[in-house]
């Protein structure tokens, strides 16, 4: 568990890494829209090609991306099964007792599966593999700035998220340490019924809460010692700048979206 990081940032010097995080957020939204625009096999082929190009550009090894997909395998299989068995259509492919499988169902399942996969891969490449969480919250704060007009505490919220992300690895390590220490005294978290298991977590949870409060207290003091006073008159160490490549990336994605809409017009094969 040591060295655990949230979001599996993959350090590299690729073009995707170097994009402005705000641009990447906009790109992510556009990309998600693109995945939902796809209607027929040609459009999906274009989406697939686009995602593959994105992965190659980001220089994140395919192996790492595939490993990141493992947790959603269950969701994927579930979606496939539901779509295959529960879609009613016209062309019956196979029938046995109460099970009917239609051509439409199979196609729906395949499209749905590809859509989910591309959705996950695309957003992960943009937001987690190539962007550090800290930079990302910075971008969120900047993008949500207009909401300050209606008195939403955007800065405070972003600050909270930044601190939280900064502390997740630290606290994960601390949790791991406390668990090891209690295990070293023979604590057993995995046997017994539900009540016994819940009780066995007490030796972890109490020290965790105590240390959380202690940490929060120290942190608040440290923030005040450094004269933190909210966002009024606050300057940044790293100022975000849009560059021409950000614009090019957004335009390229818009072009892809247009391409998908165009391809949807060809009535080839099954259309969702």
């Amino acid at each position, binding site marked *: 568990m040591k060295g655990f990081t949230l979001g599996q940032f993959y350090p590299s010097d690729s073009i995707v890494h170097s994009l402005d995080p705000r641009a990447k957020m906009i790109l992510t939204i556009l990309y998600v829209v693109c995945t939902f625009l796809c209607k027929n096999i040609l459009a999906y082929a274009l989406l697939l090609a686009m995602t593959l190009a994105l992965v190659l550009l980001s220089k994140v090894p395919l192996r790492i991306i595939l490993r990141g997909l493992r947790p959603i395998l269950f969701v994927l299989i579930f979606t496939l099964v539901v779509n295959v068995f529960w879609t009613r259509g016209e062309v019956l492919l196979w029938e046995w007792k109460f099970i009917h499988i239609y051509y439409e169902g199979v196609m729906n399942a395949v499209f749905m599966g590809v859509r989910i996969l591309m959705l996950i891969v695309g957003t992960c490449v943009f937001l987690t593999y190539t962007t550090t969480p800290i930079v990302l919250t910075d971008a969120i704060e900047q993008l949500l700035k207009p909401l300050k007009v209606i008195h939403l505490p955007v800065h405070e919220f972003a600050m909270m998220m930044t601190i939280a992300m900064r502390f997740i690895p630290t606290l994960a390590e601390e949790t791991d340490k406390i668990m090891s220490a209690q295990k070293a005294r*023979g604590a057993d978290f995995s046997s017994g019924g539900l009540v016994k298991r819940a009780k066995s977590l007490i030796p972890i949870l109490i020290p965790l809460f105590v240390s959380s409060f202690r940490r929060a207290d120290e942190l608040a003091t440290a923030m005040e010692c450094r004269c933190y006073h909210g966002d009024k008159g606050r300057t940044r160490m790293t100022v975000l700048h849009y560059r021409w490549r950000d614009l090019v990336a957004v335009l390229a994605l818009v072009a892809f979206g247009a391409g998908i809409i165009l391809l949807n017009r060809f009535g080839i094969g099954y259309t969702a």
Partner: protein
Amino acid sequence: MELWIAIIALSAVLLAQAVAAVILLFAIRKKQAGRQTPDEPLEKIESVELQDIVYTYNPGTPQAVRALDHVSVSFAPGHIVGIIGHTGSGKSTLVQMLNGLLRPESGRVLLNGKDIWEKPHRIVQVRFRVGLVMQYPDYQRFEETVEKDVSFGPRNMKLPEEEIKERAERALRFVGLDRDVMEKSPFDLSGGQKRRAAIAGVMAMQPDVLVLDEPAAGLDPRGRDIIFEGIRQYRASTGATVLIISHSMEDMASICDDLVVMDHARVLVSGPTNEIFLQPELLAGAGLDIPKVTQLLEMLRQKGVPVSSGIFTVDRAVAELSRLLGRGEGAS
């Protein structure tokens, strides 16, 4: 303190804590090796040996770190053995191998010649026999009283109630905490007392091998002395093998029979303390020093003062110097 800053800090930390806890709970579900059934205790441990241990953190990722690289070492029974090495040399990983908190990638951990991972469901029994005090154990208390907290280990061993109480009292006596502390909340103790209570929590299991990861880090000299005295007493009355990780060469010189020097995930050298400290070049190569007092005597000898070599503690240095001065041979 301004309230809203405190609120930001607290909600951020609690949020982070929640995420961290969820991640770890998923991790235990996967990591726990088999079910741990009640089992007869292991026999007394006479020998501890590591054979060709390899361990990597975050294997298969860009952050992969080889923490132990084909480490083989054995510890003499009944000795106090110091494990030294600079930060990141693999000391803490090494000691977590001994009670099965970490499972080696390859290689064997042998207690009495038997691999502890032969029967993974019995690993809890191993932990009762090899007691590990982790680094900074001060904040790992959770019960309402010190006594209950120290009893956590023996209670997990499913001992009879009287024996649990007796062991807790005995363990607290080793570390110099008296009866009136037992009823206190662990949160009301001073820093040094918390540390001692934590060490007592492991001593209460009466392990045959007591392992302490930097037991005195961050304590004042008095607190440190009390802890080392407690460790000595524990060894004397139980005959246990004791392993200590420390960065203080002075402490190691005064308490350890043997030393294991680690460097870059390997064991550089191991042997009796006085032999190891006679090789300052070797230690310097591992980023370590010999005790300050030995350095001083070395400088004296280079100036022509006939002090004998092999003196590593202040007490012996004082004796040696007064011997020389008494005979009138010493230069000032």
